[in-house]
């Protein structure tokens, strides 16, 4: 896992592409999820109005976020929920550890939370001697495999069932060579049921936090968030500040968009609304900033905070489909990850906004209308100005700008280029030219259009 930290997206993507049949499998699987989303969306003639409405609600949230956060906190406390605030990942992890340590708890069950991936919570708790088991099936699989999830909704979409079978055989005692998803899921059900029944602490994420009522909503198909939370003594819920929505009735918009965008289902099996703790039990919420307030202050990029983590942008992105989530070397990958991550560490994630052709498909499947591809373009300008692109590229671009601002130099360069192509093709048709690896260079015509036009003008005189 640490070996990916030193490689960037182009390198990781090239490694991923060494196995072409596997790339095809990954690409087709994710395209199928995009296709299911299309079918679900087309069943609702009001789909585009839903997107626009959700987008406007989230715009309102971002413009009043401090008020809504205070309102949410007050209402949650009123309901008997204990609220904590964490400025960054480290503080988030420490707060959670303290809650467990105070109660003498050394084992916790977790349901899916990308925020905890971002904060590297599992690794931190492990170092403190806390055993954390991920209960979402996909998350449990990657946990046993010692990998991070590759997709925010489909954590092990990059794994084949035979590989999962091997992992379960090694760690959960399933039969060698067993790869039937039904049998593997049953194995996980039995294993995790025992975990749910024996853990005193459960940690979940938050899909939506309602300012108006202080309740929060968690959406799952498996029921693992509820199994963990209802059986534990303490339920801890981690949320980013941007998970707020103003009023309960707005769920009538977001719950219609979220799962259709994510998997093509009309809704998840469970949409659980937590308001008060059970008698004798506790609910704690940890509200996390970790760079979000900074992103809020970036006028060009604040809209990325509207994200409801549906993953539709990943499913549609041809680059994600053909390079895999791990190529982005960050917790949240794909198009949305590429506009969120540079805010956290511009140097480390300088490659991500360039891992795109700016095709715009992402922006048009986004249920909250984030202008993802426009933000990718804008991040490129910021990253270049900050000096995080290779010097050779900057030199080449300056050369290009110089050539293209002068008609005479441009025409001369064009003529020379075509001459080279014609008489010294080996100068470009070689291994040093990345284009040439899988493509022939374009053929050089006898004359440019400009030259043809000038001749035509002459002959007309």
């Amino acid at each position, binding site marked *: 896992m640490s070996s990916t930290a030193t490689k960037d997206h182009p390198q990781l993507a*090239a490694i991923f592409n060494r196995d072409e049949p596997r790339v095809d499998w990954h690409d087709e699987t994710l395209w199928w999820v995009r296709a299911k989303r299309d079918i679900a969306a087309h069943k609702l003639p009001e789909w585009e109005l839903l997107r626009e409405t959700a987008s406007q609600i989230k715009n309102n949230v971002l413009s009043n976020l401090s008020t809504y956060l205070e309102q949410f906190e007050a209402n949650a406390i009123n309901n008997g929920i204990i609220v904590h605030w964490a400025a960054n990942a480290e503080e988030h992890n420490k707060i959670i550890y303290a809650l467990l340590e105070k109660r003498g708890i050394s084992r916790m069950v977790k349901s899916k939370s990308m925020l905890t991936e971002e904060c590297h919570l599992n690794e931190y708790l492990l170092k403190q001697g806390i055993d954390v088991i991920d209960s979402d099936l996909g998350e449990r699989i990657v946990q046993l495999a010692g990998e991070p999830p590759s997709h925010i909704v489909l954590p092990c979409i990059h794994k084949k069932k035979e590989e999962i079978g091997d992992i379960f055989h090694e760690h959960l005692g399933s039969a060698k060579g067993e790869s039937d998803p039904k049998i593997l899921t049953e194995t996980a059900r039995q294993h995790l049921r025992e975990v749910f029944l024996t853990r005193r602490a459960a940690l979940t994420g938050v899909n939506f936090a309602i300012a108006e009522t202080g309740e929060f909503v968690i959406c799952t198909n498996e029921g693992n968030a509820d199994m963990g939370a209802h059986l534990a003594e303490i339920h801890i819920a981690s949320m980013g500040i941007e998970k707020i929505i103003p009023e309960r009735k707005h769920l009538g918009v977001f719950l219609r968009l979220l799962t259709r965008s994510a998997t093509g289902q009309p809704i998840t099996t469970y949409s659980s609304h937590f308001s008060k703790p059970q008698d004798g039990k506790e609910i704690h919420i940890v509200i996390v900033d970790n760079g979000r307030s900074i992103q809020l202050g970036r006028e060009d990029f604040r809209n990325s905070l509207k994200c409801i983590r549906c993953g539709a942008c990943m499913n549609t992105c041809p680059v994600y489909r053909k390079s895999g989530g791990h190529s982005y070397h960050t917790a949240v990958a794909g198009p949305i990850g590429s506009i969120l991550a540079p805010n956290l560490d511009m140097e480390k994630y300088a490659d991500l906004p360039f891992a*795109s052709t700016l095709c715009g*498909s992402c922006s*048009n499947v986004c249920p909250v209308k984030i202008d993802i591809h426009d933000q990718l373009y804008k991040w490129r300008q910021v990253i270049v100005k900050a000096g995080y692109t290779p010097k050779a590229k900057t030199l080449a671009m300056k050369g290009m700008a110089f050539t293209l601002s002068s008609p005479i130099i441009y025409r001369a360069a064009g003529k020379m*280029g075509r001459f080279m192509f014609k008489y010294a093709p080996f100068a470009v048709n070689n291994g040093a030219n990345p*284009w040439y690896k899988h*493509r022939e260079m374009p053929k050089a*015509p006898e004359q440019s259009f400009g030259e043809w036009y000038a001749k035509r003008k002459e002959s007309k005189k």
Partner: protein
Amino acid sequence: MKVALFVPCYVDQFYPQAAIATLELLEKLGCEVHYPKNQTCCGQPMANSGYEHLTGGCNNLFIDNFTGYDYIVCPSGSCTLHIKEHLHSHENEDKALEIRKRVFELTEFLVDILQVKSLEASFPYKVGMHQSCHGLRGLRISQMTELVAEPFSKPAQLLSMVKGLELVPLSRADDCCGFGGTFCVVEEAVSSKMGKDRVDDHIEHGAQYITSADLSCLMHLEGILRRQNSDVKVIHVAEILNHSI
């Protein structure tokens, strides 16, 4: 109406026949077409790579060349989109604004401005239509599959006027070809895989030609086709619309 022809730099140097076809087609349809001879490039290769701040010289040159026309027509969706969204100038912002209002990609010019209803063209071949992303999602010259909205296509509308032409269906109507400017070399592995998959889709459906409103996409797909020694050829829509036996 005074129409200026804006020829993308790589079309000028490598695919002049597409620009020639555009010029001839516009003249056939009754336009008085000027070719400002000192034009070079719209600046997109630098801007998309994060170097928009270096495009001032390019922008001013563009404004010098293209001020004073009723319409500026370009056989490239991506170059047209770039000018529409990014042509600015400290010294000449009002001229830049005028140009941004008047620049059109070829098929949108033919359908929306000239309102072409018939063409004297024939091209009796099976053709696959590649939807270039900038033309599709940027200029909206066709409806994109992501939206729940009425389908339409300006290029397909024009191609339907060409005798004998058969548009082949595709498995993925608007998946990106993978060119993406400097992406094609910076992310070479993914870029060529994306192009290969597009080419396979067209070949599987029997296309003899792949066409598009954008030669940057076609240049990339052609590179892959020729590496595969394929008989399938690329051709710009202008060349088809201008084609007669």
